[in-house]
């Protein structure tokens, strides 16, 4: 029998195709995507062509915007445009890396909890409930204060034993604890979402088939279950990125995060607030970049979540 052309059959529409279509319809989400793309391009590509963000020029402080300094200069005569772009690198990286850390922990924890089930599941989820009830910012402040206290010693050790550039190393040891302080504490809600997904996937036929084939439990978990929860989890985690960026700014504002002369959007807003009465652009411009990024991330996350219909379920 000759096979009929494929077009005779109803073309199935996959989950991702549906989701792409729904995303395309959402003007806010698409607009946000463009803004974010532009922001990343500015902070990570454009920054290479900018002036040195740490070059102090006390003669030219508080300069008005000009052709040389697009956004003018700050209290130490540093180019504000360059500082905003470099600060953006730190802020965006904090958001992304902290999210990556928390996704990694959340997926493994949630998947194990949901997959094993029974008593183990009950105990693991009780632990999450308990940790969730602890005020997040309190823990982050304590953890960050502890971690950042070591940064001086760690810098010295790296410089001594590996011979790295001191300025670069101290910049690194200032920022890296922040990634972990936030990431180590941010996985709790994610693990719940993963668990709910795993519970649903566990009952599907392909898992049954894998069990029937006699595969080991860990193989089923890592090869069959986790890859299938990855997509929705990563979508949901888009919504945690703006949260982490906000926490970075809060910690920096309190003097517990990124420290001058390094810049991040939180540091810039903090510095700008000191010269509010005369030089309001020092507060407004970093604030604008910061808010615009958070705005787009939130709209994008909302749009992605609606498009894929990911729900955080408690049970």
């Amino acid at each position, binding site marked *: 029998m000759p096979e009929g052309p494929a077009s005779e059959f109803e073309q199935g529409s996959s989950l991702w195709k549906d989701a792409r279509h729904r995303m395309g319809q959402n003007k806010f989400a698409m607009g946000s995507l463009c803004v974010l793309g532009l922001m990343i391009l500015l902070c990570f590509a454009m920054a290479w062509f900018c002036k040195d963000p740490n070059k102090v020029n006390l003669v030219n402080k508080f300069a008005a915007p000009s052709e040389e300094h697009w956004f003018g200069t700050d209290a130490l005569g540093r180019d504000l445009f360059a500082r905003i772009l470099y600060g953006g690198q730190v802020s965006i990286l904090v958001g992304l890396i902290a999210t990556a850390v928390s996704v990694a922990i959340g997926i493994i924890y949630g998947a194990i909890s949901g997959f094993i089930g029974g008593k183990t599941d009950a105990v693991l989820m009780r632990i999450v*409930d*308990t*940790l969730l*009830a*602890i*005020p*997040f*910012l*309190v*823990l982050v*402040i*304590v*953890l960050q*204060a*502890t971690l950042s*206290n*070591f940064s001086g*010693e760690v810098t010295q050790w790296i410089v001594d034993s590996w011979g790295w550039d001191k300025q670069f190393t101290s910049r690194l040891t200032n920022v890296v604890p922040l990634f972990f302080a936030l990431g180590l504490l941010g996985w709790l809600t994610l693990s719940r979402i993963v668990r709910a997904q795993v519970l649903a996937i566990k009952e599907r036929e392909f898992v049954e088939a894998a069990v029937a084939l006699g595969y080991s439990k860990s193989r089923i978990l890592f090869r069959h279950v986790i890859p299938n929860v990855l997509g929705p989890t990563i979508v949901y985690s888009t919504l945690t990125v*703006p949260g982490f960026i*906000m926490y970075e*700014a*809060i910690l920096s*504002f*309190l*003097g*517990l995060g990124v420290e001058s002369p390094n810049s991040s959007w939180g540091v810039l*807003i*903090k510095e700008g*607030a000191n010269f*509010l*009465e005369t030089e*309001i652009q020092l*507060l*407004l411009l970093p*604030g604008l970049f*910061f*808010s615009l990024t*958070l*705005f787009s991330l*939130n*709209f994008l996350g909302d749009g992605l979540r609606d498009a894929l219909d990911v729900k955080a379920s408690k049970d």
Partner: protein
Amino acid sequence: MIKFLLGRLMQGILVLFTLYTITFFLAKAMPGEPFTSEKNVSAETKANIRKLYGLDRPLWEQYYVYPKNIITEGSLGISTSKGRPVKDIIAQSFPNSLILGLCALGFAVGIGIPIGVLSAVRKNSWVDWSCMGIAMIGICVPSFTIGPLLQIYLAAHLPGLKVAGWGSPQDVILPAFTLGLVSAAYLARLTRGGILEVLSQDFVRTAQAKGLSPSKVIIKHSLRGGLIPAVAYLGPAFAALISGSFIVETIFQVPGMGQHFVNAATTRDEFLLLGISLFFGFLIVVMNLIADLLTGFLDPRVRIADNPE
């Protein structure tokens, strides 16, 4: 109900104990000395000071002495940087934080919930779009940008409002507004979502089919169910207000607990750190309990789910 309360109480104690354990060991892990300000002190004096605070004892003993003192003497230890009992520091600064937090919460509920209801009722109209747009601004613009802007554009021009300080009753207005804005925005979004979900249900259609006026359908039939997500958020919202107050207290120079906490974290004042963390944790456990009770009151399904028998 009693079983539910007991369960929550046990969980609350567990939460506080976990918080204590984490904070204790993190504080111990901080490098350096708590008494670094007194640099020219002999080793002997230093040892005596350490002894006075009980810091010379073995770690496990310190670990159980602190909670034991809380239970038997109601003492939260003595601040190593200020030399005063932690309890006094909290007693002095907490009322200010509480007033600020409650005003902010009142503001958030008073603004956020009506905006959410309005948005839900006028779904997909320009009213809805602008309300949700403003809510998004509230979430995305940090309080440390809004606060200074309010200081320069409102406080400096309006009579009666001060740029910073804490003395007369109207001094609470600007900090409370700044602090409550984020929670108001979240509440508005949650209320809108909750009401929209209820409005799509059959009993609402029945009520509409009976010919009830739209306002009656909203007030009598949708509000109770639609407010559940917002009420459940009140516990976390209170936590957010207290944590957020670290920043707002700094901006508006409110003599609250936040500054002490941040100072304790940076100066390695472990008793102050432990005392304030536990106090925050306690407040949040209590607020979550109240939010749970309110949710159970509004939503019969929760009561049934928690009492299977």
